[in-house]
């Protein structure tokens, strides 16, 4: 079944859409959840949470903002981060919607400034470095996982991440960043 068919079923609130979502995209969602939620049982619950949120918020998916895979990735990641925080009881729950949360105006302003600066700095990185950055800081993948998937040694990954961070630190304002 193609992506458009799954989306059409989900938008039509057809239960076959939920089945198709899990049949086709559960491997992707598990892949996103796994590095963030360490416990296998929690991961399956998180998968259910994420699937439910996709079902509930499918109307908010805007193809103009990004691909279906990117949207599903972001939503699943937020669900996983929320579950991880709950498990660690260390923070507030992230919004399950995109854009997320309702921070205070000051927080929002600060966050936006940081994001803009980071986005600008990331734009100056090469494609491979950018993917490496996202794997580490967005997908929260371990060095071992990144190394295995990219055919590199862990040491080589650490070395490249170190250089990326150094570049970003310089571009984000040196030691003050």
């Amino acid at each position, binding site marked *: 079944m193609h992506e458009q068919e799954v989306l059409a079923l989900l938008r039509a609130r057809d239960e076959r859409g939920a089945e198709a979502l899990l049949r086709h995209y559960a491997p992707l969602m598990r892949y996103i959840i796994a590095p963030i939620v360490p416990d296998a049982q929690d991961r399956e619950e998180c998968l259910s949470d994420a699937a439910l949120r996709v079902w509930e918020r499918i109307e908010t998916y805007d193809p103009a903002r990004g691909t279906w*895979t990117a949207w599903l990735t972001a939503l699943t990641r937020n669900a996983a981060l929320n579950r991880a925080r709950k498990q660690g009881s260390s923070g507030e729950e992230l919004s399950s919607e995109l854009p997320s949360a309702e921070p205070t105006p000051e927080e929002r302003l600060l966050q936006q400034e940081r994001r803009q600066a980071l986005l600008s700095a990331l734009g100056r990185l090469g494609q491979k470095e950018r993917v490496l950055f996202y794997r580490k800081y967005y997908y929260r993948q371990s060095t071992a996982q990144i190394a*295995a998937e990219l055919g590199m*040694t862990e040491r080589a990954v650490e070395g490249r991440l170190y250089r990326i961070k150094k570049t970003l630190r310089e571009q984000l304002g040196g030691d003050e960043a």
Partner: protein
Amino acid sequence: MNEREFDALLESAAPELPPDDVAREVTPWRRAMENILGGSAMCAITLNLLAMNYLLPTIGVILQLLGFRPLRRENGWFRVCWLLAILRAALFLPCIVLNATIYGTAALSSPAGTALTYAMLAVQMLLFFCFWRALRATQRKSGTEVRAGSAAALLVWYAAVLALAYVQYNGLLLGFAMLGCYILILRSLFHLSREMEESGYALTPAPVRLSDSVLVKTAAALLAVGVACGYLFFGSYRMDWQSEGGAVGAEAAELCAELLALGYPETALADLSEDDLLACRGATLVVAHEADKPMNGGREVREEFGSSTHIKTVYDVKELHFTDVAVRLSGEAERWRVFHHFRWTEEVKFRGTELVRLWPAYYENDSWRPDDGAPTGRVLYDDAEGNVYAAPCASLTVERYTVTNWLGWTYHLEDISAEFSLPSRGKNRRGYVAYSTEETDGETTFLASRSNYTHQESRLQYPVRTAKDYSGWGDGPVFRRVQNALQFSILDDGSIDLWNYEP
């Protein structure tokens, strides 16, 4: 801000949505799949241009290794794929090095070489079969739809190619059809790769001790060193040079004096081995012919003749001196021993492989036949002190073959090939090849014996061919060939009319 705080900042400041290219790129599947498919495509492409038919499969074999390596622990089929990819690399990559030696062509066209080619094809087919099974196993594991028909189609395509190769099919029609099918299958496979990404997320690539880049660099370095060693140390024949200090026996010395008296050129005569001198027992007549031949491209000279321009090639240097000698031997029938001597009068710029191919008197001429005994020959040089060193030819063979001309007439031909390498030291590099012949019908009036000297003048070739492997006519980019001939008529009174033939 310390490292941990900076890490936290990066995590919190990461955008809400990953960029599309990143979202597409972050998968455990794509890199491996692209390596496998790219490698498979390159292994199947035969592009006889700039050694691409060697370069592309080499890259393909290495890509297949890189592709299957992270998947080796995914399931049993992928593990077998990985082992087969190693086996294929172990069979194929040494051939790349072997092709950089003068032994490559002979080795790969031998029965063992043919068996190796079939083994590699069989491994490739087995690899595709296991790949197809591995894809199905992966899809089952992830619970997605089981479809891997493209991989199976590739397997069938390879089987068809193998069958066409076995029957030595040379037609264009089926060839184009197969190429078209192959492009469609590859397109389908890459499409499958995209679809497989759904299930591909379920893969867990295995960690590696050597990174892909290190593996590629190591393989490239090993190949480069192997090929360089092949060019440098196995680009010429091993010649068994021995000092020519010993004096010949009394009978040979006597024969030598007789031949000299009959007109055998002295410098050429001095090169004959004792056995070759003894083979001239009963010599009654000597016919000798000398010529200088260029082993260079010469230079063009334009000459104006009225309104027309004549362009001719002028050779300022003629590096090869030929001395062709025929010795008539006693007996009722005409029996001759023919010697084709050559001598380099200039420094040899490149030392690779050389070939003297004789078209003896009985080549395309039924009036003559080979006399008893195998052809003989050797190569010689002088060191700085004037000591003479000699070595037998690396190979001296008689080859018989049948050819059919454009009129449909069939000939049985026999020629003599002497392969050797010139010494890297010394001077006055020279040698000769000899054979005996006798008449068949008692009415022989003409003897023609030609020598074709092929010289390798450059290393720039891959795969490496010897002067004998070079089948082209005229001058190629690596080899240059000159022809010389000894031709004479035997008149009714037994006297000789020598032709001054300049091919």
